[in-house]
């Protein structure tokens, strides 16, 4: 047995860094705090790689399956004898894989930020928040129980809130951060309710007990029914609601595009590579329950994923803000992962979708981080977010151009880049399970290639725009992470995920299915081709098309008016028709009742004060009559 107890330092180190930078950051030189943060993260990146290596290659397997190892665990809060929140470290294939993803991307983003955020006010605050985020995200993936996950789930939410609102004097950033927090908070409500139902029925929070395929939790959970679905299904749907919120699936996707108000490295780290895939990770974590005990909930996962990926891809085709295009593309790609999980089964080749989903999560983290960091470099050079104001940048930003192109090819699924492999596995899994979903994903693959190359061509080719000042290539701190990530995007496709990360921990055989792979590459090329025609040079085609499909274009451009719908619900219904009436009711009914009691008392006393007339003889008369009456009462009547 290998000792993994040091892994507790992986989340703990960034936390200490957060405390250091948060409490003493303003006393340090900005550069020093940046380097401290980056150095700390470099350290845990190394630790993570070591852990991954030890876990996958030297830890012993039982029955051919990777074991779930509790590296450390202590009780944080005791509820009842059986229910307690532990804080600990759970190592299993997906958590180790996530460790690698998070630390790699986070490290890259840290280095990148040293250049990108240079000279910004609040530089040390930025690194403190990044450390807080890294801590929370690592705690999330290493959680040993569902409540620990919920704790860190909330913490990543708040670090995301803090980072989106980093430019706190910009009203749009403030609005976006608020929106992100509240929307995900609403989804977390579902997560919490799911946890409550789950724990009530299984009397445990512990992942290992919960997800043991032979365990009591899975066996007993299906029994009790409520409104036609088993309790386990209900709880899993609620838990998935949390995942929908965090992963920005439809209908809780609205916060993600707005979240692009944050600094670009943050978008790369949180809103592309790591935090937003937490929902996928959650479903993967609970996967045995979904697959064995709550298949209806798993279907919900599949359909939500499929719909979101299509929906977001359509919107992405019309957006002009490059970060928003990437944001919708993220939603779409995460939809893919959700779908893959949704169509997967448990164990062996059945679990192809599960493996594909994790594979795609891994590769997506690389190329999407690359895309965002590239976008950051572009914005850094041009000082604009809008691709309408860009064009012909390939001359000015050669490194960015190349790496961006690699990323675009990867996401479009062109072999032999990593996106091709992972996407292909997903399509294969969908094909074997549900033809309708397969068809949707097939179309989305084409759309993806189209909108990514629309972005690519209009930024780097297209019209030659005159810039107010000459765009220049980013400094080395920014380009090095780009290059590393580009290499990652190329090579990660060759990692044999079917031997490492599978639904039941055992190896299964999977091979490239050419019947699926070839058409998917073709449709990708088709998308690229269309984009080439339309955006390679300045052309009137896009405008014409937009004019032809005026209404559908307008709807897609306005994101199908989802924001307006939400605004209507929150502003009009909740604020105008619930909160304000409640406040009014409180003042004018409840409080008025209390005041009315006081007023009535006062009125009565004004009425009866006339008795106190100051006429001595009246008092005496009343006194004597009273005395006589009492005498009569007690002598004659009260026998």
């Amino acid at each position: 047995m290998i000792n993994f107890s040091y892994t507790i330092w992986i989340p703990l180190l960034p936390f200490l860094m957060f405390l250091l930078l948060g409490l003493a950051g303003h006393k340090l030189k900005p550069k020093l705090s940046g380097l401290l943060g980056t150095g700390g993260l470099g350290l845990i990146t190394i630790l993570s790689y070591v852990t991954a290596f030890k876990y996958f290659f030297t830890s012993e397997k039982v029955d051919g399956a990777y074991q779930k190892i509790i590296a450390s665990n202590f009780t944080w809060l005791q509820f009842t004898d059986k229910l307690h929140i532990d804080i600990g470290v759970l190592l299993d294939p997906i958590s180790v894989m996530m460790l690698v993803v998070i630390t790699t991307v986070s490290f890259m983003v840290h280095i990148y930020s040293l250049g990108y955020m240079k000279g910004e006010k609040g530089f040390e605050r930025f690194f403190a928040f990044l450390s807080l985020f890294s801590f929370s995200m690592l705690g999330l993936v290493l959680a040993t129980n569902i409540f620990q996950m919920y704790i860190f789930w909330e913490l990543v939410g708040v670090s995301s809130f803090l980072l989106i609102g980093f430019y706190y004097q910009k009203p749009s950033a403030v609005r976006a951060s608020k929106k992100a927090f509240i929307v995900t908070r609403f989804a977390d409500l579902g997560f919490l309710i799911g946890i409550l139902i789950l724990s009530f029925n299984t009397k445990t929070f512990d992942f290992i007990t919960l997800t043991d395929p032979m365990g009591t939790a899975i066996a007993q959970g299906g029994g009790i029914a409520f409104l036609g679905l088993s309790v386990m299904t209900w709880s899993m749907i609620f838990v998935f609601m949390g995942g929908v919120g965090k992963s920005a699936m439809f209908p809780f996707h609205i916060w993600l595009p707005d979240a692009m108000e944050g600094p670009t490295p943050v978008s790369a780290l949180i809103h592309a590579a790591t935090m937003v895939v937490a929902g996928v990770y959650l479903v993967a974590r609970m996967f045995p329950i979904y697959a064995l005990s709550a298949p209806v909930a798993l279907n919900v996962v599949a359909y939500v994923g499929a719909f979101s990926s299509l929906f977001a891809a359509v919107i992405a085709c019309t957006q002009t803000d490059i970060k928003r295009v990437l944001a919708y593309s993220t939603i779409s790609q995460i939809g893919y992962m959700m779908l893959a999980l949704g169509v997967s089964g448990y164990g062996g080749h059945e679990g192809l979708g599960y493996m594909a989903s994790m594979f795609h999560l891994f590769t997506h983290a690389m190329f999407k981080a690359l895309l965002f960091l590239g976008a950051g470099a572009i914005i850094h050079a041009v000082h604009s977010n809008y691709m309408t104001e860009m064009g012909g940048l390939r001359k000015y930003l050669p490194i960015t151009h190349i790496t961006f192109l690699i990323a675009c090819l990867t996401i479009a699924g062109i072999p032999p880049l990593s996106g091709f492999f992972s996407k292909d596995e997903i399509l294969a899994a969908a094909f074997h399970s549900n033809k309708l979903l397969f068809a949707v994903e097939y179309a989305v693959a084409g759309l993806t290639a189209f909108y990514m190359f629309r972005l690519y061509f209009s930024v780097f080719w297209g019209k030659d725009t005159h810039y107010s000042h000459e765009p220049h290539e980013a400094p080395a701190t920014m380009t090095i992470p780009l290059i590393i990530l580009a290499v990652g995007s190329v090579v990660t496709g060759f990692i044999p995920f079917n031997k490492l990360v599978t639904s039941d921990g055992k190896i299964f055989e999977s091979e490239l299915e050419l019947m699926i792979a070839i058409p998917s590459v073709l449709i990708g090329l088709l998308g690229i081709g269309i984009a080439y025609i339309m955006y390679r040079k300045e052309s009137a085609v896009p405008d014409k098309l937009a004019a032809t499909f005026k209404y559908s274009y307008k709807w897609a451009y306005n994101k199908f008016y989802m924001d307006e719908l939400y605004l209507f619900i929150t502003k009009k219904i909740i604020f105008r028709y619930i909160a304000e009436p409640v406040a009014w009711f409180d003042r004018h009914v409840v409080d008025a009742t209390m005041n009315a009691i006081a007023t009535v008392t006062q009125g009565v006393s004004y009425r009866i004060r006339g008795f106190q007339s100051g006429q001595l003889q009246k008092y005496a008369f009343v006194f004597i009559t009273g005395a006589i009456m009492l005498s009569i009462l007690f002598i004659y009547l009260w026998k």
Partner: protein
Amino acid sequence: MDILSLFVLIPVLTITAILLLKDTRQVRLVSAFGMGLQLLMAAVLVYLYLSARHAGNIDEMLFVKDYLWFKSLNIHYAVGVDGISVAMISLTSLVVFAGIFASWEVEILKKEFFISLILLATGVFGFFISIDLFTMFMFYELAVIPMYLLIGIWGSGPKEYSAMKLTLMLMGGSALLLVGLLGIYFNSSPDKNQLTFNILEISKVVIPLPAQRMFFPLTFVGFGVLGALFPFHTWSPDGHASAPTAVSMLHAGVLMKLGGYGAFRVAIFLMPEAAHELSWIFIILTSISVIYGAFGAIAQKDLKYINAYSSVSHCGLVLFAVLMMNQTAMTGAIIQMISHGLMTALFFGLIGMVYGRTHTRMISEMGGLMKVIPFLSVCYVIAGLASLGLPGLSGFVAEMTIFVGAFQHPELFYRIVTIIIVSSIVITAVYILRVIAILLLGPTTNEHFEHLPDAKWFEKISVITLIGSVAAIGLAPFWLSTMIGTSMHPIIERILALNPF
């Protein structure tokens, strides 16, 4: 001299010292010293308590002292603490300590202000250490009355109205409460022995069920008025809005906890059967408090009103959890009291400090304060995050304990209500973020605010004391939870033994 009576004695001595002072500038130093000593005593008490427990002392109440006071009615001055009271005493001494520093710059009638403030604290301390219903009630009244002066004299806005309203409503609650307590007293000995006010002795007998049915609602509502139970909460917004900073802190932070603590220690503990039978009514009322208070807070424009409604919501959660009558939920209720006490004291303290600088509490008139007064703003954000239940701060621990505990209730009705209650976390997030966004973030709207000074040293002491406690509970909740939980255990055992449901 026993250690518990010191908690009443130290404030009284402080008051005496203040009375004897000639120089009004020294008043605050003496107060700070007295309350600092009190805080130290609280720490000593925690230590003594834990070591006594560690040494294997399993009595229900520790450090019990009993002096006969009025023989004819068998009234005693009886004190004793368990883990719950120790926790509440620590909370009180923290909040009072912070409150003294928050009112460092009171301008008029300094002496009288600090005397009233400490008198209030005396009442609260006395309430928490008493195990005799009569003494308890006496201290309860002692805590409520100085409020009238504190708001009426040092308040702002329609202070006379607010002070009058608050005092009258609380007195109305006291009237119900007195009837309830006397009802308990006269039923405290079914076999016609000596009647008693002692909680421990009463808990050993079963009060006849008809009497419980009559006196449980009286006692519960009586305490509930102070715990802001819907619909008896309306004193809270006006009272808090008019009260000076330290008084808001003490009132929301500590005094409102008297309601929750009393409802738990007296109403539920002594009359569990009726509590179980009638809990559904009060469950409905408290859930209305929780949701309604939160929605009420969304629509407010005045910072203090927002916080007052938020207190209604959070204190509703306390009463709700107490009514669930199982160990986890009730432990959660106590943690929630402590957590909310610290958090809301922090909030009111910060609001007072912001108000002292901007001279307005209307959120629409402020904006972008983060840039101008970063220390206070960051603290405000932390307070807000604690209030909306961020893990790592105390609110999360309390709320989760309540939710998990309440959801273990065997009846479906209670679980469904729990789910409704859980949704309050979203509403809380909405109003907290709304305030933070408008008040602190964004561009600085008013040029008069460009050069406001940030926190002074005494303000920092006040704020850091509270934030430190909030974070300590949030990061390491196990000791608090264990301390309360072990004390809760015998209580729950008794409730269940009398009442097998």
